[in-house]
């Protein structure tokens, strides 16, 4: 702790690197005992994201628990109860980076409340890693994870077929599991799915050219010539996933300084959810339906000519139209969002207490929060058959994935979730406790 780093002349190289690399948000999901904590620990360890004091701490903790090997799972199990019970309770966020990319990894438990946590982790993910035990193949829980990733429309899925060392790296096993995965993924509408044979324990094909401290790589696995898991997520092209969609920006607040320096400044602050907006574009605020021309775009790095999905900006308009918080900006001549007082869609119920028909709720979509009344559950997703089944009960229970409607007190502007992840998702909130009850993915309007 008292060593001094020798600082060379290439000081700025580290700063340049840290400032240049892009970011990818990942979710990792796996069934119980698939080795997920070991895989995550492996990614962190092999990218040198585990620092010496962290490693020493888990080394000591492993010894206290009577284990000779360092248990990388201890690194990610952050809560006392998790370490005591050897389980993961809650979504944990982990950070690792390579020279090309930095990664935010949502580690979701496959144990209890798996759907709730996987939905949470998947909602912000640009790509998913799903673990499958090569010896077990696709289990009901794997189907559930894939179904959730399909419902949440995670654009890219990488399946790590783990514990290949325990099946002697048999290519036939990998081929059979991959066929199962492809069938299960197709059933839930996942378009970009790839499989990689790995051993999280030894690190083989998790990271490139991995050599364990214990010795050599297992030559039996050398038939696999594709990219390692890490290379795969390093190279995923996500630049089009949001940017190619029609422009959307929920208005968070109106910036009006009314100071001597800026007496007339009036800007609409928000984060571009999808597409691009340029100075000179005609835009319409929904639900108000009023249009104006973009005269300027202010951003954290100064004025812009064009802002793209993901940017936090302040948009200046030619006219003082009614476009405050709760309005959704969209192109005047492009596809408009839907303005609806009746939402139907797919909901994942996240609360311990189930839903009731005519339950009073709040619905938060974009920056609008309105009162609503829940309808009865219409259909329930059967995870084993990947089919919708008629509802047996009018209410939804914890971890249920259901088709449900909600009647709103006033119309709001939304997109179909299939068209826009960031403006087609809504929270269902308990107005009394404030608890988040459900994640709602807006579907097509109900036929009238």
């Amino acid at each position: 702790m008292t060593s001094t780093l020798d600082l060379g002349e290439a000081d700025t190289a580290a700063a340049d690197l840290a400032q240049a690399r892009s970011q990818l948000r990942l979710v990792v999901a796996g069934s119980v005992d698939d080795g997920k904590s070991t895989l995550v620990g492996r990614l962190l360890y092999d990218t040198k994201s585990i620092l010496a004091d962290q490693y020493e701490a888990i080394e000591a903790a492993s010894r206290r628990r009577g284990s000779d090997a360092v248990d990388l799972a201890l690194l990610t199990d952050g809560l006392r109860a998790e370490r005591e019970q050897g389980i993961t309770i809650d979504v944990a966020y982990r950070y690792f980076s390579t020279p090309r990319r930095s990664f935010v990894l949502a580690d979701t438990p496959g144990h209890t409340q798996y759907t709730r946590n996987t939905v949470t982790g998947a909602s912000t993910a640009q790509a998913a890693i799903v673990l499958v035990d090569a010896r077990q193949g696709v289990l009901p829980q794997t189907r559930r994870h894939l179904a959730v990733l399909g419902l949440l429309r995670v654009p890219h899925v990488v399946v790590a077929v783990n514990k290949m060392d325990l099946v002697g790296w048999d290519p036939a096993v990998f081929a059979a599991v991959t066929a199962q995965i492809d069938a299960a993924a197709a059933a839930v509408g996942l378009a970009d799915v790839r499989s990689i044979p790995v051993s999280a324990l030894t690190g083989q094909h998790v990271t490139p050219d991995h050599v364990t401290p214990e010795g050599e790589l297992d030559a039996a696995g050398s038939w696999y010539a594709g990219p390692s898991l890490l290379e795969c997520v390093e190279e995923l092209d996500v630049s089009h996933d949001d940017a190619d969609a029609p422009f959307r920006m929920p208005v968070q607040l109106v910036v009006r300084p009314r100071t001597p320096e800026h007496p007339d400044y009036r800007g609409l602050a928000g984060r571009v959810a999808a597409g691009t907006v340029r100075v000179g574009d005609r835009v319409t605020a929904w639900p108000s339906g009023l249009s104006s021309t973009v005269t300027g775009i202010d951003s954290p790095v100064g004025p812009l000519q064009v802002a793209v999905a993901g940017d936090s900006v302040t948009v200046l308009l030619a006219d003082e139209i009614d476009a405050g918080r709760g309005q959704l900006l969209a192109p005047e001549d492009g596809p408009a969002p839907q303005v609806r007082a009746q939402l139907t869609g797919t909901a994942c119920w996240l609360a311990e207490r189930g839903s009731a028909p005519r339950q009073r709720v709040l619905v938060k979509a974009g920056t609008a929060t309105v009162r609503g009344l829940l309808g009865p559950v219409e259909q329930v997703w059967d995870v084993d058959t990947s089919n919708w089944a008629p509802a047996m009960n009018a209410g939804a229970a914890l971890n249920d994935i259901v088709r449900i409607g909600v009647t709103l007190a006033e119309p709001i502007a939304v997109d179909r979730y299939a068209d826009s992840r960031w403006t087609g998702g809504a929270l269902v909130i308990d107005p009394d406790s404030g608890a988040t009850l459900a994640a709602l993915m807006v579907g097509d309007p109900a036929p009238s």
Partner: protein
Amino acid sequence: MTLTTRPPTPGATRAADPTPPRSTIRALEAEAIEIIREVIAEFDRPALLFSGGKDSAVLLHLARKATAPAPVPLALLHVDTGHNLPEVLAFRDRIVAEGGHRLVVARVEEWIADGRLQERADGTRNPLQTVPLLDTIAAEKFDALLGGGRRDEDRARAKERIFSVRDGFGGWDPRRQRPELWRLYNGRHAPGEHARVFPLSNWTELDVWAYIAAEDVALPEIYYAHERDVWLRDGMWLTPGPWGAPRDGERLQRRTVRYRTVGDGSCTGAVDSQARTIAQVVAEVAASRLTERGATRADDRLSEAAMEDRKREGYF
């Protein structure tokens, strides 16, 4: 090639990139500004926890951008242990004066003086901050506190939500956290409850420094290598002050050091460093083999669950 990849949908057209992909720090900046704007829009009396440390300096920098060119509509709150380095307090006061902010200071010494708190045997005041923090939140009726906490700091923090609603006792119950979906943050709370909001949740120490470098964010000079009288205790360089001085067998010596974190002087150590510029600090952090808390915070070394326990009691 055994990799199984489905080709993209035929006929799907892709527009050319209008701008290059945003770098990690610009993506993190956009996310943090979105979060700060949500707090300003949805809460009546939000405040920003400002210690003068690097994370709070970055947070304030982002808050200024979030509402620019309008002034920041947030009070600043500092829980003062009385064990601060004078350079940090001077920096705090300079930033407050320059920005015209309202600063609320909760002095731990006042709670000790009137008996609401007792000085600990080890002289450390970091754990004593919780009660003054909660009392001041109640007195000022703050309903949201923006903090610079990051998930990469500690295993328990890794489980923290960006919006974390606390009960009337400020307690954190990891099993009762709200699921956080998409970019929809739910800060709804009952009277007497408040939300802790962490816009830097997804930043790492290196991201913070890369951002400080990119934006030239002002910091107290103790973050850069300087000469200082220090003594070695528990593998950390401590500096003398109101919190204490070397004991028997500990020898004061002059060394070139810098701080990676700022906190209670009795348990926050400096590290040997020659990094005198931002770029040199970034290089040092990138090459470091120790976490900032492992290197410089005695209070987090106490047990595997030290941070979890403090958070459950209402700590930052």
